[in-house]
């Protein structure tokens, strides 16, 4: 109130008003006389509208921040998110860019302060109080789930959703409907065939380097529906991968998605070569198929080198390995490194 009295100068503004009005009237009259040659008879006596006096507010109170007690509960003053208002915040805030050496502008009429989102409603005591208030709805954390491994072991499925909080008239954001499901492939119980089929089904949703299958759904309008959908997708893929269809038996060597040494002519060549060398006589195709490579000295190394060469494409390393394996198999001396 003291501020109010200090700033309160009765009369001065009011008088200025009158003088200004008088002045403006005079200018108007002068103009009229210049433009109009004849006076027009004003029968209806239409009065030119007088300049409305701007009512002077005498009762502007001082900022309420001045009346605040130092031990007040700030949470009551600023209970929710709000843009900054200088008269309600009892802090000597300054913000804004100014040339070097000057002080930034104060809090009054400072758009810079109003633009930035503030967290005045989330002071530590308020957060503490709110946590206490909603504690009664919380249940204790299961005590055996005390580390990451335990959590991953017991709850292998990970669901990722996002909540959005922004300063706009609406509280909704379409992006919050998107649901993502992640699971380690090793956590699924799959045999070789099922794993192969599963990978074919999920396609590029499987990341080899992290062993994670990520399924994202955004086609339904509500998060709940999307969650149901990703769960459905996972379940469907899983059971589908265990199914063996009749046509799967028709898979030929050309259909193989990787190089299988045991089914390829390489093995037949190796075995027949070995038989010839060891002079044991020829084997039939069936016998070649069941022949164990381990019986051949350096056989497994050769198998690995060949498989690598086909599966991992040609590179210096694979070629070198193949070279070494063949030399060992044939009993040739090791390659001399060019000096």
């Amino acid at each position, binding site marked *: *109130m003291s501020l109010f*009295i200090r700033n309160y100068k*009765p*009369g001065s503004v*009011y008088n200025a008003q009158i003088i200004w009005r008088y002045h403006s009237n005079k200018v108007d009259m002068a103009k009229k006389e210049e433009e109009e040659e004849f006076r027009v008879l004003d029968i209806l006596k239409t009065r030119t509208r007088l300049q409305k006096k701007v009512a002077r*507010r*005498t*009762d502007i*109170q*001082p*900022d*309420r*921040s001045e009346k*605040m007690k130092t031990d*007040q*509960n700030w*949470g*009551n*003053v600023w209970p929710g998110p709000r843009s900054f*208002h200088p*008269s*309600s915040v009892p802090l000597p805030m300054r913000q804004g860019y100014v040339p070097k050496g000057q002080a930034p502008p104060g809090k009054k009429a400072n758009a810079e302060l109003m633009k930035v989102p503030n967290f005045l409603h989330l002071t530590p005591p308020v957060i503490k109080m*709110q946590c206490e208030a909603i504690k*009664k*709805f*919380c*249940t*204790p954390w*299961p*005590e*055996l*789930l005390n580390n990451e491994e335990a959590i991953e072991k*017991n*709850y*292998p*499925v990970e*669901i*990722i*959703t*996002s*909540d*959005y*909080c922004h300063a*706009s008239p*609406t509280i*909704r954001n*379409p*992006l919050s*409907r*998107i649901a*993502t499901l992640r699971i380690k492939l090793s956590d*699924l*119980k799959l045999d070789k065939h099922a794993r192969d089929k599963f990978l074919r089904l999920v396609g590029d949703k499987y990341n080899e380097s992290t062993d994670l299958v*990520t399924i*994202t759904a*955004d086609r339904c309008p*509500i998060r709940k529906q999307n*969650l149901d959908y990703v769960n459905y997708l*996972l*379940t469907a893929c899983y059971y589908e991968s265990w199914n063996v269809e009749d046509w799967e038996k028709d898979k030929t060597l050309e259909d193989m998605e990787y190089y299988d040494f045991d089914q390829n002519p390489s093995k037949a060549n190796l075995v027949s070569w070995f038989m010839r060398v060891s002079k044991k006589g020829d084997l039939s195709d069936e016998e070649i198929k069941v022949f164990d490579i381990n019986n051949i000295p350096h056989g497994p190394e050769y198998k690995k080198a060949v498989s690598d060469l086909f599966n991992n494409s040609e590179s210096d390393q694979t070629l070198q390995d193949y070279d070494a394996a063949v030399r060992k198999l044939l009993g040739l001396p090791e390659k001399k490194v060019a000096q």
Partner: protein
Amino acid sequence: MYTNLAIPRQWSRLACFCRSLTSVEGQKLPQAGKSSDGISPPPRIPRGPTDILQALAATVGTDPTAAHYKYHDDPYLIPLSNFRKRSYALSAEAGKKAAAWVRDQHPELFTTREWDPPMKMKTPYFNADPHIEAFAPKPIYNDETKVTEEDLVYTIKNALLEDAVKVFELLGGVDNVNEELKLYFLQLICFYNEKEPVSNEWIEERWFSTATKERQATTWKLGGLADKIFTSMDPKTPEAYCSLIKGMAKYYQAERAYALSREALENNVPLSTDVYNSLLVCIGFLKEGVTLRIEALLELLNEMNQQGITPNTGTLTSCLRSLSAWGGGKTLQNMALQIIAEFKNIGIEPNLSAYYYLLCLFCKERGPRIDILSGILTELEKKDTLEPEDVADTSFFITAMSVCSEHLQDMNLAERVHKLLMKGDNYKLVGDAYKESIYYRHLVTVACRHAPFERTMELLDTLIPNIYVPEPTVMEEIIKVLELGGAGERLSETWSQLVVFGHARRLRLVERLLDAMCACISYQDEEVKSKIRKSAADMLKFYQMVEERNENVTTRTPVQKLSAVALSNIIDLCSTGEEPESWEAIQLAVNELGSASGAGRADVISTVATTAAKKGQHALAASALTYLAECGFPEAMSASVDTLSVMLNRSTEEVETMLQGTDLQGKLQESAMAVVQAYRMAKTGEPLRERDSSESSSDSESSSDEE
């Protein structure tokens, strides 16, 4: 757009990673109720959809520096007077109403739903914005509308009374509507008496509509739509009878209601408890005289017993309502206590309205002091929450507080009532704006009169101005308390409060304030004194400004001018300081004195004349003394002598002898001469002739001075 988006982290402000508990192969949902095995989560604590919000809201208390949240939190927009509070809130609501009107007039513009939130890419199949019934345009029914019975059901369900009547007519009136719908419609119009209620949507309108005591007049529309529908109904169901009787009783058509109930009894139509409750209220209109009325009351209660109808809380409330309406006196009071005791025997506790009627019955103005309030409070304090059950429930707190303030004059009881109102959610029972303001008027009055000073100040600081703006009478009480407590600083602030609350033009209050300031200023700190001086000077300026405005604009009620006493009070206050501003104010006040009504305080003016002379402001001293002399105060002579002695720096004896001499013209300065004139005027009481000459002489003298 989102398919390749594994984790939309770049957009997310708050991303929540949660491990799902949904069942996949080999995994089980946690069984609710099963004890925790250390891995599965414990069963969920059940909660409603808004429980968390309510828990969070409960952490927020009231902020006495802030206005109600319906107003903008800005010094320019916070209303500080009752008038502004009302007009701001209603203006905001008028805007809403205008919007609703446009919406209802052009429903075709509001058929589409907005994209929520507005985005660059609009997917036609997705919109999360839910349809909200309350925001949708209301259907408009006129003569051309094609209506079905569904429309009637809709209008009845939403209590759109006028629309319901229209639809009813369009459907073909009483003959073409089926019996069930007719009954619903009858119930609606009986409840509202064919008058459109103020919609629940307009909170502020309901809050500010001054519902003073309901007129107890027969407003029931005889031969109206309700009667027509009732006669057309065949067979007449008990529900139809009940609703018609209740409607008649509610709108004080007592005779017809009673007659109809007799008719129902003759036809063996069972009546409900509510019907009897409403009939109990009507007894006062049927019978004259306390004894006859009590007889009729007991008769009705006995009849209920015979019919095998169990009474409820409403029955008790209706009985007490009737009793309290029939005046006071021992008989009625004993009867009320007897009824309450009997109801307690069958396990029915009185509710807030029952207590309200009890207070009305026992605590009469000018009646003997009966303290039944403390007993009632003890009962109510035992309850956790007070649930509103009856319309009169909202009158309880205001009546209780007025009993505290006027009947019992007990601050401790008043504090108990206030505490009960502030407990939990009970503030909803305060009623409307009118009741709230009366409640606080009583509270502040009783605090001012009967509470210790500190407690009163604490209360005032929390209530004023945001919760309650004191009315002039209450303001006077507050000034009185401040004067008694010697709170100079608060008194000086009171002036700006008066301006802000819109009471500054009430002369009585301002003069009262000035008196209080004068009484207190002598023992204040220097700082406080200067504040008081400032506000006193400000009052003077304010009234001058108002006067100026009065001259320019003819208002309906011209503001009175400050009286001479008030002016001399201002002079008194300002003369305690040295600042040039306060002496300017004194100058102004002395000039004003001549045209002010009444007579000023001579002692103050003579003192200020001497002080002014000491300070060298001779002209001021002279005009003060002239005023004194013109008014014919006996002090004028001695004061003139004193002032002259100061001016001329001589002893009083010398001055007196000098004054005995006749020819002083030319020897003295202008102002000293004026003092001499004043002295002579006071002595002889014959001013006029001398005045003329003195003016001419002073003119000549001033010219001679210049030489």
